[in-house]
């Protein structure tokens, strides 16, 4: 066991876990932040996507040792006092079916819009194709990302 300090949604958190423990399990089990989901543990599905220093990252493949000292944003920290435009768009388009993948979808979409506020349809599809949705809500995911990007335009 070792001690690691990282910033989670703007707050400094210190955890005492084995260095190879994935960030996913530190979030879910140690910090009790259960919005980030376990889907495959191998980076294929994207359900565990968080931002690490602003970059969309698979938390299931990120040992806590490599997240130490860095800034992690999770679905719980995506909105502030108000919802992120993507969260609002997800509600407006009624995107989720089972909903299990949607935290990862939202974090991937948020990383896209942070870098490319007004993506083309092709950029949306390319960015979102790393995240599996077993319910296949893909059509509404595309609509919601477009809607949010237009909301950002104001």
């Amino acid at each position, binding site marked *: 066991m070792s001690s690691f300090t990282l910033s989670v949604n703007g707050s400094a958190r210190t955890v005492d876990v084995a260095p190879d423990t994935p960030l996913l399990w530190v979030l879910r089990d140690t910090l009790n932040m259960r919005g980030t989901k376990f889907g495959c543990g191998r980076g*294929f599905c994207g359900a565990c996507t968080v931002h690490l220093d602003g970059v969309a990252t698979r938390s299931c493949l990120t040992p806590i040792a490599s997240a130490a000292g860095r800034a992690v944003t999770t679905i719980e920290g995506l909105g502030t006092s108000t919802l992120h435009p993507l969260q609002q768009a997800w509600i407006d388009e009624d995107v989720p079916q089972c909903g299990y993948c949607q935290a990862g979808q939202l974090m991937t979409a948020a990383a896209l819009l942070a870098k490319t506020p007004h993506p083309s349809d092709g950029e949306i599809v390319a960015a979102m194709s790393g995240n599996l949705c077993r319910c296949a809500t893909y059509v509404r995911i595309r609509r919601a990302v477009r809607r949010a990007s237009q909301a950002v335009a104001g």
Partner: protein
Amino acid sequence: MNRRQFFAVSGSAAGGLIVAWSLPGCASTATRRSFKPNGFVQIDPDGQVTITAKNPDMGQGVKTSLPMYVAEELDADWANVRVVQADLNRDLYGGQGSGGSDNTPSEWQRLHEAGAIARALLVTAAAQRWGVAAAECETEPGFVTHRASGKRADYGSLAADAARLPVPKTPPPLKDPAQYRLIGTKVGGVDVPAIVRGTPLYGIDVRVPGMLHAAVERCPVHGGQPGRVDAARALAVPGVKQVVTLTGLENPTHLRPGVAVVADSSWAAEQGRKALSITWDEGAGAGESSARLLQQFRELEATGNLKTIRTAGDVDRAWRATTTRVDLTFEQPLLAHATLEPQNCTAHVHDGRCEIWGPLQMPTSGSTVIAAAVGLPVEAVTIHITRLGGGFGRRLLSDYAAEAAVVSKLVGAPVQVLWSREDDMHHDYYRPAGFHHVRAGLDSHGRLSVWHHRLITLSRNRYRKATNGPEMTEIYGLLVPQSTDPKDTYDPDLVPTRIPNCRLDYGDFATTVPTGAWRAPAHNFNAFVIESVLDELARRGRIDPVALRADYLGDRAVIPVTMDTPVPYDPRREQDVLRLALDQAEWQRPLPPHWGRGWAAHYTFGSYAAIVAEVSVEGNRLAVERLVAALDVGLPVNPLTLEAQTQGGALDGLSAALFGEITIDQGRTVQSSFDGYRLLRNAEAPDVEVHITPSREKPMGYGEIALPPVAPAVANAIFQATGRRITRLP
């Protein structure tokens, strides 16, 4: 429990709402002055309306759409309605579960009645308060009104008075659908705001004080069990507490054997599991393989000895007389469910009771399995139903809940069992594999004169050691003729209705490969076979596809209900959805070079769906460019979930058609995760245009309806583009 019994137990709802675990939004707000006329409605004096969702939501949207029926008759203001998930409650609800697209047809009537009774009592309370006749009072969302006097009272202010009134045993008349305010409007999912915030909702999110985590290692060979277990290295992993052995139950869909590593975190349990050293007793299944299964299918088909399920006329003589013939064989692969939330469940067995928190599709039947696994009476099992991160039929079985219960019993603490993705892929209960041989033909008048379908599959019934016929899980619909007149028989899954010479033969054999229900069970491949053959006949015979259908299905209003069809089948409704899809797709509009257009229709669990697909094929590159869906589900309750289920169901069908295949080698499942078992990704998902037949017919389910016609529509489009007939999926 029948409806009368259900209404007789009114007034005891609050007990079902009180739960003491750490997912939000479930706590009861009932006060002594709350109005709770039945298990679905609670109105508090402050005006809060709570509607209870009795059955599990796995993404099909029933937690939203079913409470809409209650709210409609109650005339509740939806913006002021809170929906809570019921626990398992045998007395209050009878059976609880979600499967077979059955929630809507089974529940809508009593949900209407539950709302109507509550509304009638509120009206009576207001009428008594005002000294007017109840018949003079009306309601508008959230209020009782009296037009003559201009009086108006909100439901909350009437709750205490309404709670003192006797609950009628028979419901008042229901609304005329023309008066609906809520049904038929687009209502967003009640859990969506929580989902987008990452609020804990799912089985995997359950936390119980003192809870331990378990990972279970199962024999890699299907049907095997642990022999010698050396747990020393596992127990040395930091955080690991105990290693216990699970004995399976007689029915392998109830519980399979394994070795559980119990630890203080899921990561530690997983590390401990990897450190186990187990010698397996692989059993008879070690030689099983996909190649061997296919060989057995072919041999059984070739050597005969199939069971004739139904027969009319003389298929062999008619076959010789056909002028247009199709003779095709089809290979049906195993499919995995791959719910994105891996199987998991939390259990606490203590003091002669078993408390369960988990993502169960079938809490009622699951409680029986769980009780048997831990040796308790079923009444000792309590189930708190969480949201399900996908179902697709996998969670009709409750084996993972039985595992959690047994591990909890063995270690004497609350335990959450969590499967890895590899566990899920290796130890799923797969969609049965199979082999089909169809001979069908048109006579010299261009009429469908012969249909001979020989079907050999693995059987879910045989795997679960059911005593009824192995074919009954693999051919839904009419299994014996309903009438001696062949014109009166219809088989929703295998279509020889008015075909004068038709025969359906079935065969199966035992295997260790686990099988279970997969979204639109049986329909999901049988429709592919039927619609591929029909398409080939129509194209070769140059017959209008709708006319062909009209000819063999007939145009009578109904063909009798069978055990699997809750409403009479109306062949005209199937023809209408196909016509609607074709028209919306502008099916006669020319396509670019290398494109093809195909279509298919199917009747699943009381609803009708048709799909038109457009594909482009250049070299070996196939792209599905467009999907147009048309559905008739009776009176649609929530167009938003209907559209979602149609898009999702169609793309699920496309994913299975393009990529879905589990293979077996040396008794083991080859695929481990989403690298080997591909699912459709966003870039591969075409837009799905959804068209709904306006209908006042009885409402039917729509979670599985759009899926069966997709694979044949795509295959038929490929045939048009290339002349190649696809007979093997993926």
